[in-house]
């Protein structure tokens, strides 16, 4: 096969993979080009604050979006790491979505902001040790 043939074959295979059954009402194939946040603050602003709010105080409606501000549970770095990795309740896990470096940066950020003062920076290695494999395909 020529190089072009290979590209076509790859495109056709991709088409088959994409057209899987039972898909939720989603926008379609667009929207994949998202600015990649790097620093802890960037990750917080572009991901976390959508639920935990810009001030880290969470919110209350029919249920509760937990506050990260002044939260004693952040004393142990493993707690927010596992929360980001596995999620809890409605919060999805972010393994496969946020890299260990991004997770380390944002854990460091929330542990040193919003009234939290747990100084020691969390390392990528600490995150990797707890991160685990990404979840299987949605169904």
């Amino acid at each position, binding site marked *: 096969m020529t190089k072009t043939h290979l590209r076509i074959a790859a495109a056709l295979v991709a088409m088959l993979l994409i057209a899987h059954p039972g898909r939720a009402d989603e926008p379609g194939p667009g929207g994949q080009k998202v600015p990649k946040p790097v620093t802890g603050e960037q990750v917080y602003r572009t991901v976390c604050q959508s639920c935990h709010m810009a001030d880290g105080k969470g919110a209350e409606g029919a249920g509760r979006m937990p506050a990260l501000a002044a939260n004693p549970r952040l004393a142990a770095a493993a707690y927010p790491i596992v929360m980001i990795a596995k999620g809890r309740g409605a919060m999805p896990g972010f393994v496969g979505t946020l890299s260990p470096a991004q997770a380390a940066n944002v854990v460091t950020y929330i542990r040193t902001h919003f009234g939290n003062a747990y100084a020691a920076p969390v390392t990528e290695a600490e995150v990797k040790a707890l991160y685990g494999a990404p979840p*299987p395909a949605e169904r």
Partner: protein
Amino acid sequence: MTDLGKTPTRRELLTAIGMIGGTAALYQAMTTMAHAAETQFAGPPNLSGARKGATVIVLGAGLAGMLAAYELTKAGYRVRILEYQNRAGGRNWSLYGGDTYTELGGATQKVQFAPGNYLNPGPWRIPHHHRTLLHYCKAFGVKLEPFIQFNHNAYVHSDAFGGKPQRFKSLAADFEGNVAELLNKSIDQKALDATLTAEDRDKLKEALRDWGMLDKDMRYTKNLRSSEHRGFDRPPGGGVNGSPIPSEPFAFKDVLDSRIWTQMAFFMNYEFQTTMFQPVGGMGMIGKAFGAQVQPLVTFNAKVSKILQDKKGVTVSYTDTSTGQAQTARADYCVCTIPLGILNQIESNLSDPLKAAVAAVPYSNSVKIGLEMNRRFWEEDQAIYGGHSFTNQEISLISYPNFDYLKDGPAVLLGAFASGMGAYRLGGMTPEERIETALAQGSVFHPAQYRKEYRNGASVAWSRVPWTMGCCARWNEDTRKQHYQTLVGIDDRVVLAGEHASYVGCWMEGALLSSIDAITRLHKRALEA
């Protein structure tokens, strides 16, 4: 029709099977008779003979809850619905001019759309095979109109072509034409001799010529034939300049770089195939129509705090959020449609396996933004009537209104339908920042008009919707295996229903199918008690 009454019609036969064997047997029979293969809906539940005085409390006045209340009432139960909001409909919802919406975090938007315009923050399109929803739309008098799902003339924006959007039809034509030409070459180079007979190779070549718009030499080139698919430089007209001028196909490399196959594959998907529908006047018309059926049963502003069942019934504690008063409600049984993320936080004595199932399912996020424009420039200037233009930016797409074509005056287009990481970023913004982002990103499609014609806008980020705190339940292969059957099972006197308790997740159809199944089993359990 002379023998009417002698030989049963197919419908009569199916009705009889349904009465004898229940809905599962009916579904089986319908499938055998080449009916209904696209849906598990076998008609409304055939419930009757509830014990005198038997009561049910339904938690949530979304579609699942309201359907449960409607059908259980018909079956003879005394039903009451507790709803957190001050409106019925749940995620089935439209925002109109004059509406006020306050999201988690406190940001309040006053919607300024002109009369007749709206934003559907949640569901917005109905597949033709969502027969349960269509059935109840008809039964409750909801008028439907076509939702333009597939528009060949809308745009696709990517990093290819220097970021210049191209029409879907041109990219799709060039993709298919080039694939046809290359596959034909493979046949000529005998690459498929071992796979296909000579006769089938000839047929395939004919197919490639027809499908790929190839010329007599089996090439995809600039000519009137390829332009019949991809569009003309000068379309056919009348009079002296009536003759069409063909257009030049794009370089195949650019076509591949545009990843046009991802859009083509999207339209192939079962849930997104035409025909699709929308209610006249906004998706929220469905919730309103359901609400009209169960209106006297609903207690609004009821925030549930505790669900306790005992040997004789279920007690639900709630706060009336308009007065702050603590209340309780009691019934023999409970249909709970509260979104799992919220149910997970409510104190209960549900069984441990059910609690584990409720806790195991995360929710998606998405963001929708409505932008009202002074005029329909997409129609007037670019001949786009409904449908979507796709982009790789966070807004994912803009979608054009599917009604009031050619009308003067303001119209609302969907300026963003973000999901995943894009939705987190947009969801974390203030409403004003979201509008600004939608205007900046959507301008790639309509650079001359977008900001100039903008009037006002509204946005809903589902992570900040106070009554769901997320968009839809997201199952995966593992959680389905470990928890799904537990989640849908009857937990003594309580059964869960909603899109989260279905395999048609994130669709209204899933909520309704789940509800019918849940109340059918609950009714059976109540009769056996």
